[in-house]
Structures are given as C-alpha cells and as structure tokens.
C-alpha cells in the first residue's frame, strides 16, 4: 500500500437521455512517488476522462459509476466536494493543453498565482509573492520579478505553459496530471517543457501522469506507459518494453503506423478502420474488427488485463498471451 496513487477498476459513465454511455470501462493503474506514467491513445480512447476522474473533476453528465481512486491511501471519489477542493490544486495539480485557455486573460500572473496559494495555505500576501517568484524561477522564467506583473497575452506560448507549470507547482503537489501539455506548442518549445517536467519530477519527488497522443514524447519522458483503446487499457508496462517489444496488436499497429521506422516514400502500415464511438463499442474485445489476428473468442469475450512473464508488463488480448 505504498503507492502514491492507486486506481482500481475505475468505471466512468455519461448519463444521457437514451441511457448511460460507458467512457471508462475498468481501468486499474498505480503510480509511485516520483514516478512518471504516460497514458497514450487516440482521441476518444478515454485518456482525458481518466485524468479528470482521478482529480474528481468530471462535469455532468459524467460520473464515476464504479471503482476507487486512492491518493496516499485516501479514497478520493467518496470525498465530499468540500474536502476534495482541499486536495485538488493542492496535493494534485492539473496542466491542460492550451495555456491561453487555462490562464485568466484579465488577471496578472501575480494575481493568479497568489490566489492559488492563499486558497490552500495560511500565509501572508508577501510570503505568497515570494513563493510565486520562487516557482517562476524553478520553471526558468527569465526576469521573473518583471514577468509576474504582466498579463498572459504579453507572454509567448512556451512562456505561458511554463507559467501554468509554475502555478501547478505552487502548493508542492504530490501528483501532477498533464493533459496534452505540449500539443499546442512547437517542437523546440515542447522539448523544453518536457525537460522541465522531467527535471521537476526528480527534484520535487512528484508523480506525473502524462496524457498524450504522441508516442515519441511519451517514450522520452515516462518510465511506464498505459495504452488505452475504447475506454480500456490494452497494454501497460515499462516504457522501453512497450515501445521496443509491444505485444498487443493495437500497440504494434500504432507504433508501426508512425513514419520514421520505414524506408522513406514506402507505404505506411495503417490500421484499417477507426476507433469505435462510445455508442457502438463492439462486443468482446473492442479492437477485434480492426485486428489482424482476431479469433472467434475475441468476438465473444472481453479479454482481461493479464501480466506476461514480467509482472510489470500486462496486456489484454486473447490471442497474444
């Protein structure tokens, strides 16, 4: 029970007029102190919903219908909203994709940072300013004394995302959930932000959940990867193992579909079809209509996530065992 975060059989549903849609269907994962876990998958796989469920920020009509989320042994999904607010933004912080949308455009950076500190800690405004400046320095913002008085529109995209990271750090959280933190940024800036996150996880002993669709980014930053497909984990394991020796046909397909490993100009290996929408997830293994090695059992039975020889590496597939 020494895990920082433990997610057990998490199930998230969206209550709609014509019935409930299952967005997350039995996701289990753990994260230790200072560990970096990547959640990858295509749009609609349930990556972001998993992130939101962990921080208990699902907006209606979404709700956690089953399972448990434990942070340092405390069950988050049963907490009353009042208590959850003390944890959210304090023990767990979240970083979103678009820094322009995350920051309030009519408040200075200082106001936004101090607001967060005062909400969670009993300190004076001067002390709060000192904390804010300290965190801005941690994310390498040059001339932070000047920057702190500026408005978000005066900063570039990369700078804004650093400020968002600094705000996430204000309360020294134990866990940071980063949902596509660099998708809106250029590659050179992306590399800087990723370096920064990695550095901070090591120095502050923070756990990181990195949600992204970019396998390249995930393979560089994280220690473990969970590959999601249609609301379930298809494969989870140490990053290097999953990338170099993927077992699930979907993971294999994803990695092979990337240009880069092939002779330039040759046909890319495509996965036929597309991810099913939540309204018509196929019975059995959700991937079977697109799978090249599917069997009769795949159409009938949902495969369980079982570990291979290596305890850490788990896959959900009937055919590959």
């Amino acid at each position, binding site marked *: 029970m020494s895990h920082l975060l433990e997610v057990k059989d998490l199930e998230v549903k969206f209550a709609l007029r014509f019935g409930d849609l299952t967005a997350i269907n039995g996701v289990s994962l753990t994260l230790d102190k200072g560990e970096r876990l990547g959640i990858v998958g*295509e*749009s609609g796989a349930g990556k972001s919903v998993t992130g939101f469920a962990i921080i208990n920020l699902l907006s209606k009509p979404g709700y956690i219908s089953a399972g448990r989320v434990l942070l340092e042994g405390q069950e988050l999904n049963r907490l009353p909203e009042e208590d959850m607010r003390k944890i959210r933004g304090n023990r767990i912080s979240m970083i979103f994709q678009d820094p322009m949308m995350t920051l309030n455009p009519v408040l200075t950076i200082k106001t936004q940072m101090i607001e967060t500190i005062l909400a969670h800690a009993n300190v004076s405004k001067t002390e709060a300013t000192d904390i804010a400046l300290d965190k801005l320095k941690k994310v390498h913002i040059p001339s932070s004394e000047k920057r702190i008085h500026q408005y978000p529109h005066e900063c*570039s*995209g*990369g*700078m804004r995302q650093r400020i968002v990271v600094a705000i996430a750090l204000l309360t020294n959280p134990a866990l940071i959930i980063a949902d596509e933190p660099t998708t809106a940024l*250029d*590659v*050179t*800036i*992306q*590399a*800087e932000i*990723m*370096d920064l996150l990695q550095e901070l996880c090591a120095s502050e002993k923070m756990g990181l959940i990195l949600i992204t*669709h*970019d*396998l*390249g*980014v995930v*393979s*560089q930053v994280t220690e473990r990867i969970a590959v999601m497909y249609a609301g379930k984990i298809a494969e989870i394991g140490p*990053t*290097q193992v999953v*990338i*170099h020796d993927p077992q699930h046909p979907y993971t294999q*397909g*994803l*990695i092979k*579909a*990337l*240009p*880069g*490993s*092939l002779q*330039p*100009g040759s*046909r*890319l*290996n*495509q*996965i036929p079809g*597309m*991810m099913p929408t939540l309204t018509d997830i196929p019975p059995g293994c959700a991937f079977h209509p697109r799978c090249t090695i599917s069997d009769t059992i795949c159409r009938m039975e949902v495969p369980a996530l079982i570990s291979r020889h290596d305890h850490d590496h788990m896959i959900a597939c009937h055919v590959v065992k």
Partner: protein
Amino acid sequence: MENDNSLLAVNNLVKHFDISGGLLEQLRWKNGRIVRRKTTVKALNDISFSIMPREILGVVGESGCGKSTLARAVLGLYPPDSGEINYQSSRIDNLTPHQMLPFRKKMQMIFQDPYASLNPRMTVKRTLEEPFLFHNKSATPTEVKDKVEEVMQQVGVEPSWITRYPHEFSGGQRQRISIARALMVDPEFIVADEPVSALDVSIQAQILNLLMEAQEKRGLTYLFITHDLSVVEHFSTRVAVMYLGKICELAATSELFESPRHPYTQALLSAIPELGRQKPTHIKLKGEVPTPIELPAGCVFHGRCLYTDERCIREVPQLISLNSGVEVACHAVEENRI
C-alpha cells in the same frame, strides 16, 4: 535556382500584412508630436524556390514562420507584395481572376481542418460536383456522376454515401472527401497545408498512404506544408526549412536529415521526440521566436543562434548553393565556421 523544367518557380516573393487598423489607431504620440505609424506582419521575406514535376516539396517550420502564407500566396489566394510566381514558365501572380481560371484547374489545395473546410450544408455529392461543373461547363450529368464515383472510389469513400452531409463522417473520412474534392478537376499540382495534423496516428497513416497513391497514379506534384518533421522525412523528396518568413535551408530530404547545415535546422531536428530514445540530447536554443512584426536586423535567427558573430547582426544572409545541392542561408556555413 532558375530552371526551365520546373513546374512552379517562386522568385523573391514578399508578402507583408498591414495590421495597423484605421487612421486613428495608427496615430502615436512621440517626442511631443503626433506621428502616424504603420504596423505590418512580415510574413514572407524574399522567398525563392522551384518545384520539379512529380516532386514533393515539404515545407517545415514552427508556427508563425509563414508556411501557410506561402501556401496561399503560391495559389494566388494572397496577392504578393513583390516577387514572381511562375507556373510552367508563365507568370501567374499578376493575372486577373479570369486569366487565372485555366491555372486554377491545374492547382488545388487541401486544408488542415476537415471540419472547417467542408461546407456543412452541402452533401458530399454537391461538394464534389461543384468544382467539376465549374471547370467543365459542358459536362453531361452522366459524366459528372461517373467522375464523382470514380474519385470517391479512389479515395476510399463508399460511393453510396454520396447523399450524406459532412457531419455524418469521421475526421479521417472528411479529409478523404477534401482530397476527393481536390482531385475532381484532375489537377497537376496540389498544395496540402497540414493535411494530417488534425488526425490520429492510425488515421494519419491512412491519409498519407492515400496521398502517396494519388501521387503515383496521377503523377501529381505536391507542396506539402507541415510542422511534423517525421512526416516530412517520410513523405517528401525535398525539404525547405522556414524561419520567420525566410527559407533558411533547402535540401534533398535524406541530405537534410543526415547532415543539417543551418543551426536552426540542427536545433529543430534535434528536438524531434524519437521513439525509444530515452535521454534527449536536444540543442537548447536561447530565447523565443521573435515576432514577425519587428524582424531582427541581419540574419533573422541571430538572436537565438549559437554561432552568431558581428556579420550576422549586420547583414542578411542569402541562400547559397553548396556543392552537394544543398541551399543554405547562413554566414557561418558560408565562412566554414560550422
């Protein structure tokens, strides 16, 4: 640079956008006097390149470097401020819309966002028929129907879905329909502006394969704009790297990826996250991209470059050809300092 066999040749293209607004917004108080000041975004500054028939020229660069402006300027969607665009040796940048018509049929465009580029109130049938009928006024209904069916089959969209509306399709299928619309008039030259950036990896592979197939079957020439370097490496024959409205390096794809010459290209390539490479050893650039409103003097990259010297601050480097066929705009490369 000058080549008579080229399909498209762009010479010294310049495009600036005036963003200063109305007269009152242009007035500033300066040293006790009111002065009028214009603000312009310098999107393209002296761009020259040519594309050979059947070639795929990839254009890469970070956001705001002028990639998309270049795409639109080449097709005449933005009139250039100065410079020339030649298509098969005839100048097209100064034509009237009517004179441009025969060229429009040969040049088509595919846009980034398949949700925004298809008219939501038009069925697939109407979307595809419109460009064909516009350019073939005398076409009979059977010809139109056959053409639509043929093209839909080619892009892998079920022809019986012809009466559906865009919202009934997924992102990947919409992008197939956009490609079909471009292919309807049998173009020779296609400008694709980030055609796969809005799509998921598995769908991205499908669309890239489709574009490659169309290129082989129809002998198409592409100007392929993207920010994704791994896509460019796989897809294009030559690559132009842009920074702040300038081409800083232009080379054959394998040459560029194996031995990048320009310091910016080197930094850009080193920042690509590669599968399974645990320890990134990317080149860290100083600072951030300056705004294209106030361009730095001299080399536009000098403020962030690791090899800047006095000449770079003073003098704008020109694109020079090295013996390997690589074109680079860098004083340091020219002087063998790198």
